[in-house]
């Protein structure tokens, strides 16, 4: 793309018609602008507190393509430090995980505390006299770092709103998912990473609300019984879920389950690990009444929980996976995968849940392996010169104008704008609408209004028109 402003104008007009210019999924100029306007502004997932339980524990984590260190300092404070020495810019954190009191730059020996503070400069007096003020030369740190139920997010934009405001109605769902186990949740093992020739947005919009693909792309898992983890009805044929616009481009697919039937409840996890807890009965009942979910928190953090069969001779096993779709280049990403388990689960459950999670939604997973095929093919098409010249568009019109069976669920009791059932693509439209707002804005964009979240639906809208 040579004229980005014109491209974004066309993107806007296309989206209103339920179309997305395919070039957005593989273009170097768009990729560069995304790094600048989305990934140095938005709240990005960087890891889970359980990965760094002790003072001095650290893991290397990207924000966009930029190298950061998620570290719990000697003062117990979690920081996200930019991994570049303040002297000449060499890397100071030299392993992907570890425990360190100090980060040492190998080039000239500048040394930093695990709080980011500059601790030592070789030959400081002889080399610099009094001209160097160590207090001004700590490692750069993300201006905003916040945790929610152990999930750590960071924003590089001083003007970004607080995390709770950024999450909007989606915060209620994060409370519902991760706020109901008295001992909390933890990640199991180290995250898996694989490099994929596909755009991060393709994966993000898939998890935001693409149920349509499940019944065809993942049909092998239906035919072999891997998917058959929900016994109240058959989820493989079940469209009876909600698409929830969670605010600011966040979306959630939610499959509910009446609390007076056998279940699965609590996303299939053992009910004894959940208790009415600190956040009140409303959220607890909502968690109990949820069989599974899939979600994307804008821009590139997704999660999913469903019970699946790793083997058919045993019952379905609950899984909960986190994904970070890290942009790596135009049409290329690194997929990060964490499996999660409630603390206090038995060793056996933890192991079976882990192997089922990795066996379904990871680079070695029976679902996700098949996702990688069309995701790569989309990047291939999107990078084609002819796709750009012919202005080829992805079609995301499903549900617009009230066509189809999915309708706004005005009686949905929980936060967000809900549609029932899941056979609609408004979630993708809302995701791309938020993307456009970030891409066009010179400064941090204002929050998305309810009208904007649902503006490209064309049918009965959030404000009651039509």
């Amino acid at each position: 793309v040579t004229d980005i402003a014109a491209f974004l104008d066309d993107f806007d007009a296309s989206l209103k018609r339920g179309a997305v210019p395919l070039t957005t999924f593989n273009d170097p100029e768009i990729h560069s602008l995304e790094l600048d306007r989305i990934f140095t502004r938005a709240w990005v997932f960087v890891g889970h507190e359980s990965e760094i339980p002790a003072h001095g524990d650290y893991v290397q984590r990207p924000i966009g393509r930029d190298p950061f260190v998620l570290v719990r300092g000697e003062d117990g404070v979690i920081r996200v430090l930019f991994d570049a020495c303040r002297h000449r810019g060499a890397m100071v954190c030299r392993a992907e995980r570890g425990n360190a009191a100090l980060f040492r730059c190998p080039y000239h020996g500048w040394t930093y505390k695990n709080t980011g503070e500059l601790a030592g400069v070789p030959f400081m007096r002889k080399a610099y006299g009094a001209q160097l003020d160590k207090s001004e030369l700590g490692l750069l740190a993300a201006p905003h770092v916040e945790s929610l139920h152990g999930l750590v997010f960071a924003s590089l934009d001083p003007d970004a709103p607080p995390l709770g405001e950024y999450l909007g109605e989606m915060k209620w769902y994060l409370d519902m998912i991760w706020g109901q186990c008295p001992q909390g949740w933890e990640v199991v093992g180290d995250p898996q990473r694989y490099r994929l020739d596909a755009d991060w947005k393709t994966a993000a919009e898939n998890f935001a609300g693409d149920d349509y693909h499940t019944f065809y792309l993942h049909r092998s898992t239906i035919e072999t019984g891997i998917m058959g983890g929900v016994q109240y009805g058959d989820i493989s044929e079940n469209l009876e879920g909600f698409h929830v616009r969670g605010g600011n481009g966040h979306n959630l697919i939610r499959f509910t389950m009446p609390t007076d039937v056998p279940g699965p409840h609590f996303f299939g996890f053992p009910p004894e690990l959940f208790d009415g807890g600190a956040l009140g009965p409303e959220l607890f009942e909502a968690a109990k009444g949820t069989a599974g979910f899939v979600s994307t928190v804008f821009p590139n953090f997704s999660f999913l929980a469903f019970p699946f069969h790793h083997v058919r001779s045993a019952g379905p096993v609950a899984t909960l996976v986190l994904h970070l779709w890290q942009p790596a280049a135009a049409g290329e990403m690194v997929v990060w995968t964490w499996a999660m388990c409630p603390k206090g689960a038995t060793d056996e459950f933890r192991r079976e849940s882990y192997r089922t999670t990795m066996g379904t939604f990871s680079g070695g997973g029976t679902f996700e392996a098949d996702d990688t095929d069309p995701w790569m093919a989309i990047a291939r098409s999107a990078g084609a010169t002819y796709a750009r010249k012919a202005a080829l568009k992805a079609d995301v019109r499903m549900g617009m104008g009230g066509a189809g069976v999915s309708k706004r669920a005005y009686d949905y009791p929980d936060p967000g704008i809900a549609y029932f059932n899941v056979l609609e693509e408004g979630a993708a439209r809302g995701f791309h609408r938020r993307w456009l707002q970030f891409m066009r804005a010179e400064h941090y964009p204002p929050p998305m209004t309810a009208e904007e979240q649902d503006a490209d639906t064309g049918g009965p809208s959030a404000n009651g028109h039509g």
Partner: protein
Amino acid sequence: VSSMVEADQRRVASGSEAYWRCVDYLVDEAAALDENRLDDWLAMLHPEIDYRVPIRITRERTAGAGFSAEGNHLFENHESLSLRIERFATEYAWSEDPPSRTRRFVTNFRVFELPGGDLRVRHNLLVYRERMAERGSQLLSAQREDDLREHDGALRLVRRTVLLDHAVLATPNLGIFL
């Protein structure tokens, strides 16, 4: 995960009968996988097989090789491997249809006899993988730590740990067996 040779493992001399049985098994196994004879491959496995591909990360020299204590790319048993193969036989296992062209190079065999009589084979694996031409090809490099056990008159793989040299997998999925 340890690739150190433990004291109670007795090295089996290269060129001995036991050594060649192990090599024959692993070369035949590689051929079955490269030729996409997955049912033949499954039949070569011990019913109690424990199959793992640990996740690896970059650690400092003093912290060891960087294999995750609990994290595995693949963490399978006989029944789950069988289910994966059954899935490939459906018409909808898109990521491996068309199938990858693979070539497994198995080398550097060291055979040890374990106290219970199993044979442990540490060897190197290089897998060439290519599928759709425009996406190029990939190489996966690993050490395998395999235990072979006598079962119904033949050696069967009862435990495999694939110690990858990759921290970030350089392949779009693990739709192939390592």
